[in-house]
């Protein structure tokens, strides 16, 4: 793979006294969707949080678009072009939908064209534009969470389980929005437990176990190799 947008080399992360990441090596290619897969508790969320700077890497190197960002502040990583959608949605519930979106446009006013594109992807956000974000349903909060990351041009999106706990109709809206992002050429690193969604969206896959990447390659290879899928993910082809 040539010139990835993001490269992790031997990244180790501790949370308090626990050693969570044991030398993660990962390349995220440009203009593609990379699925970060694995069972619960293997370090997928910690990997995303280490990339955005919530946790500091104890050892190893994180390079974004060729620049070393390992010691960079979280806010500087965000301003460098990394959009982060956390697992808990991360919306500001005391603020309105509009205020959430305005805040997310850190480098200036929210571009009306971009806003209209977000409305097209997530129609409920237009309806509840002036409502407090805390009053939205779970699915609408997740839409807002992703929309907020889209409020500005990002070179890389880190998205943590966007379909978790959502109704099937909302999952399909979410998948549609992510597909649009992919079509626009965005680079995305996506943690997803729903393998059907992962298979539909992913170009590449990286599978984690025990704080390491144990396999990476084209999504197509993983999705069609029953033995590999069973060994890495504990899934049968029927379940996938």
């Amino acid at each position: 793979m040539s010139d990835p947008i993001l490269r992790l080399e031997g990244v180790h992360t501790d949370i308090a006294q626990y050693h969570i990441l044991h030398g993660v090596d990962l390349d995220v290619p440009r203009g593609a969707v990379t699925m970060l897969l694995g069972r619960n508790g293997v370090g997928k969320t910690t990997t995303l949080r280490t990339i955005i700077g919530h946790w500091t890497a104890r050892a190893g190197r994180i390079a974004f678009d060729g620049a070393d960002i390992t010691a960079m502040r979280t806010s500087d990583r965000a301003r460098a072009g990394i959009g982060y959608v956390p697992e808990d949605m991360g919306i500001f519930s005391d603020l309105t939908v509009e205020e959430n979106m305005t805040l997310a446009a850190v480098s200036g006013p929210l571009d009306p064209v971009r806003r209209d594109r977000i409305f097209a992807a997530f129609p409920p956000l237009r309806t509840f534009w002036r409502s407090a974000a805390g009053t939205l349903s779970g699915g609408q909060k997740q839409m807002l969470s992703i929309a907020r990351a889209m409020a500005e041009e990002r070179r890389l999106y880190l998205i943590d389980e966007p379909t978790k706990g959502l109704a099937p109709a909302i999952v399909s809206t979410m998948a549609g929005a992510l597909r649009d992002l992919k079509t626009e050429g965005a680079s995305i690193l996506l943690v997803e437990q729903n393998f059907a969604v992962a298979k539909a969206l992913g170009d590449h896959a990286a599978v984690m176990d025990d704080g390491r990447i144990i396999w990476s390659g084209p999504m197509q290879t993983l999705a069609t190799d029953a033995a590999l899928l069973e060994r890495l993910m504990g899934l049968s082809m029927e379940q996938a």
Partner: protein
Amino acid sequence: MLMRLISGDSPRSRLLTALLLVIFFGLLFAPFLFPGVRALETAARICVFILLAASYDLLLGYTGVVSFAHAMFFGMGAYGVGLASQHMGRGFGSLIFGSLAGAALAAAFALVIALFSLRVRAIFFAMITLAVASAMAVLVSQLSQITGGEDGFTFQIPRALGPANRMGEFGGINITGKILNYYVVFFVSLALFLSLLRIVNSPFGRVLQAIRENDFRAEAIGYRVVRYRIIATCISAAVAALAGSLFALWLRYVGPDTTLSFAIMLDILLMVVIGGMGTIWGAAIGATLMVLAQTYLQNLMGSAAEATAAIPLLSRLLDPDRWLLWLGVLFILSVYFFPAGIVGRLRTGR
């Protein structure tokens, strides 16, 4: 026009609007509606404490930073005016210089404390402010040559603002410099209060609210949380100092008990909590209620004790000397029934 003046931050409740209008017009016409020294004293105190509580709300309610040094910043403004008037002579120049110097010193102190503590964790800020405020109170008591020690000191203000300046009569009320002084306190407090409203409703204020809710999320969007907290801390300290300057101007006296004591710090905290954190309007309600309770609760209890003299236990419970007990009971009840403060309760109707 009015909405622009209040930065579009409407009270969002009819009852709250009515309460705020009563407070506003009550204070605006206080010298004419409530003649008498004590009433005017109470009105001026309400103006100053509304501003002081609002400045604290910027920190606690909008940024989620707990500080115990707010009374210290208040004192810096008060001593700034007092010392400037004492050493530079009576005059408006001394008042302005003392106020600005006090505000600048408070902001500088807040900057240093914030730089040392907010970079680590917000809780350290609370601990450090407690230590610094205690040290400052001791220092002011010890430096009696400069500060007047425990007794404080009186100073002269411009003649135009003194009670001896008689300017005529209006509506049966003698217009004196004291009333002019009251209006200086009122309008400067009002202007600064509206400025705080403007700040919390600006993009800067929205970032502060985002930080209060979840500082990591705000950081992950691209906001440097520490920088925002430090700026908010400095603004809050400077406004508290200006409130202190107004208080000193009104009292023509500064002393540790009236400006630096921990009791004042607790009062500010209670005003913000009772009124409703993170609303600014809550500061107006909380400060008015607290000052009125502190001033008139004893009288009210005296009347109640007299009326219930035939009932032995009740009359003793209502003895005016027990006013602090009842103030405490009122505080507990208000926190229990209005956990989001009076403004929060009135806005949500729950």
